[in-house]
């Protein structure tokens, strides 16, 4: 019995091996012609939908541009978004759904919570490079988050850019921090206070308000007492910033008011009303209507979409651009598209021209792009106008 079985087994093994060898080149070919998939947990509904819709459009537009131009080394990009409602569990479900239906190489995550939750899974699978809507300082650590990066400066770096501008404009100035009692709000405060001191600035007051608070009159009085030259808001989108600015001005405060990325979209700042004329903030990207310098990529966007596009759109667009660049460099090096190779390729980006989306060449040596510019609201023109040159913290 044994003797008769063995040759048949061997024969079967040989047949299997032969067919595998025959099929192997086809498999390799299929692999090389496979689409490069960009998955996305995108908040198209919920509290973050105002940004999610823009992010989605930006990513989709760039992917279309690349595909129309022939793809990357003959391979097409495929963008697979899924709505998350800005909830971590739904976001993870979206990730699982997209990754089980597609061979995903690149992914866009919608929140800090999601970025932290999915990180062990990214490390375990080792197949995906991820970026997203979060600029959390915690994520700017290549050792802890080896398969992720931030498409801009982290929150501490954003305030760092503002502080650098302040130190230049008014050495020794008094800077107040007003922030929300949330992970997002508290994120950069401690490190930024130290950075301010290093730059010779003083921090007379730090005010933490409950997330979503509207009545801030007691905080405004405290702020007025500290008489800062600059007040930096962080951890909010809009409310309660207009209340602070209006009440502060009514009380005769002379402080200049500043915000960070998620407050600084043109449409958000314009909602603050006439009283917020001169409101400043850090922006890593050039605004849609900023024609102060040559920006061929922005020209393309303007031709594609004649109406104003938010900074969230630019963020999505730039994310897709950097994803594409990382994929292109990985393929050019003849390496498979996995998390490690994609990240390594991303980190080879040096003095890269974003087509004017960022007004200065960028270098990604770690997990962030520590570059930004201070813009100022011109309420009459209903536009944000540059108030500084591009500031690069790594230089």
């Amino acid at each position: 019995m044994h003797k008769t079985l063995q040759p048949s087994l061997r024969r079967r093994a040989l047949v299997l091996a032969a067919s595998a060898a025959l099929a192997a080149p086809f498999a390799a070919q299929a692999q090389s012609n496979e689409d490069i998939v960009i998955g996305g947990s995108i908040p198209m509904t919920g509290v973050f939908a105002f940004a999610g819709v823009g992010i989605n459009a930006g990513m989709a537009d760039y992917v279309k541009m690349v595909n129309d131009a022939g793809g990357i080394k003959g391979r097409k990009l495929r963008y697979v978004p899924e709505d998350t409602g800005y909830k971590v569990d739904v976001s993870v479900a979206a990730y699982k759904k997209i990754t089980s239906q597609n061979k995903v190489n690149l992914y866009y995550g919608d929140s800090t919570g999601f970025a932290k939750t999915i990180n062990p899974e990214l490390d375990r699978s080792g197949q995906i490079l991820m970026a997203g809507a979060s600029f959390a300082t915690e994520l700017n650590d290549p050792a802890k988050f080896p398969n992720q990066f931030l498409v801009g400066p982290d929150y501490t770096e954003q305030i760092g850019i503002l502080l650098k501008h302040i130190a230049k404009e008014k050495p020794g100035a008094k800077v107040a921090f007003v922030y929300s009692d949330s992970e997002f709000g508290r994120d950069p405060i401690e490190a930024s206070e130290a950075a301010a001191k290093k730059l010779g600035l003083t921090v007379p007051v730090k005010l933490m308000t409950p997330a979503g608070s509207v009545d801030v009159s007691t905080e405004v009085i405290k702020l007025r007492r500290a008489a800062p030259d600059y007040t930096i808001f962080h951890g909010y989108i809009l409310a309660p910033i207009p209340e602070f600015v209006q009440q502060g001005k009514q009380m005769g405060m002379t402080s200049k008011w500043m915000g960070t990325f998620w407050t600084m979209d043109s449409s958000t700042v314009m909602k603050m009303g006439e009283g917020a004329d001169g409101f400043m903030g850090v922006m890593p990207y050039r605004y849609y209507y900023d024609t102060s310098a040559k920006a061929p990529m922005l020209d393309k966007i303007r031709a594609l979409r004649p109406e104003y596009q938010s900074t969230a759109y630019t963020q999505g667009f730039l994310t897709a651009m950097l994803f594409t660049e990382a994929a292109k460099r990985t393929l050019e090096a003849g390496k498979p598209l996995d998390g490690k190779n994609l990240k390594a390729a991303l980190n080879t980006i040096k003095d890269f021209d974003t087509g004017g989306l960022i007004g200065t060449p960028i270098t990604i040596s770690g997990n962030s792009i520590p570059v930004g510019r201070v813009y100022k609201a011109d309420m009459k023109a209903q536009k944000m106008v540059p108030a500084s040159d591009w500031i690069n913290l790594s230089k």
Partner: protein
Amino acid sequence: MRIGTLKESYIADAALFDSRTQKTWLAIGAALLLLFPFVASDYWLYLACLVAINVASASGLNILTGYTGLVSLGQAAFMGLGAYTVAILETRLGTHFLLNLLAGGTVAMLGGLIVGIPSLRVKGLYLAIATIAASFITHFLFANLKLTGGTTGLSVPPAQFFGLPLDTSFRLYWVIVPVMLLMVLGAANLFRTRVGRAFIAIRDRDISAEVLGIPLLRYKLLSFGLSSFYAGVAGGLWAYFFRVVTPESFPLLMSIFFLAAIIVGGMGSILGGILGAIFMTMVPELLKLIVDLLPGGTEMTVFLSPVRTVVFGLLIVGFLVFEPHGLAEVWRRTRRFFHLWPFRN
């Protein structure tokens, strides 16, 4: 058709599963649960685990709100207590995950006992507002204590089972689903005991219950304790499942989610808690799958996403209006129909 279910003893009458048909279906259900991980994709396994965690927590809330009549909006806070306990024990001491889950349940139970004290004086909406305090207090503690890692929270290493890290949905399924089943079975059995019946008496009229000799203090607190123990264990499972616990992981909205789940499913019914949790977790996902089937690609997704949310809301309202006894009642009616089928329909 269902025939021959004549009961000859009280024990047989009180049995959880009383007919052969029921036992057959249970066996089929168990076989499907066993088979499921081997055929399902990672996405469906993830959803199965999430549903199981939500079923466990909703069953706990059902003990308190559905059976004892005490409305609570603190379920998420108790889950948070359980999750943080598990996270702290796992990161600091590295004790066995089953022990951590029990500890998580116990800590949440202690929290529940404290929060339950006002239930002796206030009922209904007033109690619901009193339990909201639990959400705010726990959120404040989680965000400000060093032990809990502040606003950044804690990262939880995977649970270990004889050296095997439980780091995928497939592996965790074998922990989460059995624990959930055990908890649901426990809850179902509870209402065959003196304690469970005392809860029901309190729900129906607490003054009469006291006249009957049921000490309200003890039983109301016991109900709070049990319910939050369930929440704590579910929170512990949540911590192992998501591996990151932050103060923002357990918002007040989550408590409302569980309350909605037992209302939609059917209050005062174990099956109601299960069906409600499945409905609340799965319907948004199923609606997404339906939207995916429609032509139009990405543009359509953007347009239909808000529509989907509205449809989900309308479905909940629809259930409340047309079936106030919840999904469990729909299920019961369906079953009753088959009792005499095909002779009467």
